[in-house]
């Protein structure tokens, strides 16, 4: 039988929180069978506030402290409609109540925020939710990078590298760097891309993208682009 099959609303319970035993004797009573399924205690004993500290130190994210957990952010969220685990209200809750372990377990979800600012727009308390979530995502990238999709890192590094080196974004080069670092460079010649690439070579845009240059005295600007918060 599947793990926790007897639990009503099974989808709301995480696998890791279900305890099942072959034969289980509790206070001298054999509770084998269906009744030996237990849920882990939900008592939250150890508050780990490192995420909260990191987020509050970031000037753009201090508004996290105004949150009243109303959930308007999640209600309007673009990504929550596509990924049920993406829940900005819950991410903020975990940060502020020190449930860092739960947060880290969703590291591969938090970064999927698309930055559309619906949450910030709807927040009745003036939390800049979009930038708070972005900040939490960046923090997770420094503490549990391995739990995040390689595509996240490839995208992140492609942007940072190009911004630091050239101060401007050449989107074809960005895409090439991104695909190369994932070993997917052949996709540049996929049927969906091929037409665009050839057209850009033909009408000169590809050349413009290669020759876009960089701002004057760019070297001195670099550290603000490459820096973390």
């Amino acid at each position, binding site marked *: 039988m599947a793990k926790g099959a007897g639990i009503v609303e099974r989808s709301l319970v995480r696998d890791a929180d279900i305890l099942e035993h072959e034969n289980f004797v509790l206070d001298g009573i054999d509770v084998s069978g269906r009744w030996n399924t237990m849920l882990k205690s939900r008592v939250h004993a150890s508050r780990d506030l490192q995420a909260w500290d990191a987020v509050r130190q970031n000037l753009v994210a201090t508004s996290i402290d105004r949150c009243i957990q109303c959930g308007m952010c999640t209600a309007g969220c673009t990504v929550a409609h596509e990924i049920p685990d993406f829940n900005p209200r819950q991410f903020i809750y975990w940060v502020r109540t020190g449930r860092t372990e739960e947060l880290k377990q969703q590291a591969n979800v938090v970064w999927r925020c698309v930055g559309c*600012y619906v949450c910030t727009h709807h927040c009745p308390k003036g939390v800049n939710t979009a930038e708070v979530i972005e900040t939490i995502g960046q923090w997770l990238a420094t503490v549990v990078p391995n739990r995040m999709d390689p595509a996240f890192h490839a995208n992140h590094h492609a942007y940072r590298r190009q911004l630091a080196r050239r101060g401007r974004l050449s989107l074809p080069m960005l895409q090439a760097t991104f695909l190369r670092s994932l070993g997917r460079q052949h996709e540049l010649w996929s*049927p969906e891309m091929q037409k665009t690439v050839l057209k850009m070579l033909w009408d000169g*845009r590809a050349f413009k993208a290669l020759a876009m240059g960089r701002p004057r005295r760019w070297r001195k600007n670099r550290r603000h682009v490459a820096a973390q918060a």
Partner: protein
Amino acid sequence: MSREVAYFPGCSLKTIDRAYDVSTRLVARDLGLGLVEVEDYACCGAGELKGNGINSYYLPARNLGHLLRQGQVDVMVSCNVCYHELSRAAYAWTHQAQIGEQINDMLRAAGEPPMTQSASVRNTLDYLINHVGLEAISRRVVRPLTGLRVAPYYGCLYHRPQAMVSSVQVAGEHPEHPHFMHDVLRTLGAQVIAHPAETTCCGGKNLLSDEEIAGRLTGRILSQAKAAGAEVLSLMCPKCAGGLDALQPRAVKAVGEGARLPVVYYTQLMAIAFGHSPEASGLREMESGGLTVIQRLMRQLASAAPV
């Protein structure tokens, strides 16, 4: 030229989204605006440095510093991402004293011109409507887009977040149901098709890294616009164009044939209505069949015209 205004094209418009730049310039020239580019521009940050605290303001503030050094205060921005980033930096500099000081410290340390006053960042759409005016626009229309069923699409960063008091909010744009593009398209004589996805996000930020979600989000927009009866989607952001136009095959893969819909910039529709050719308006550079729709419209208009 009767009026001069600074113009910030940004990286996309300088390279692959040349069509938006070309059509913006055509329309501006017709409306008597002389565009002066912000010199020595850098990227606006493109939303990629948001999690970086104070450093996230650096690139947009640097651009505003260069704008002010040129003796300009108003700057017209076509790209929604640039518009958002520059507005965000201008707002922080003006209303959040602590951040403003730090911004200028960073700029001075790098030998760049600091921000000396609050810059006024204007979205091209807002500038055309509220500075030039719908009346002046309607006077320039020589080829009304009669019968063209256009779905306006604003994206996210044009009007959000409301608390940032960007130029479109000052101009009185509706924060939930923006209508400036509707107004322009109506002025051009097009039939405006309202649809539920006018301001839903295209997922452009994760266009590369989260293909699956980006495909579903763009698919949702295109299919809703098409289902509402549109034959072309009118947009105003090069980042949206990436997903809705160039990578439309992904949207079709995610939600089906209902997502196949030609996409053009609203400035291209303006250029067409002002009498320019589809080629001069950059329609050849659109990937999803915008050229075909406009050529068909022009044939219809030609055959309907009195001899």
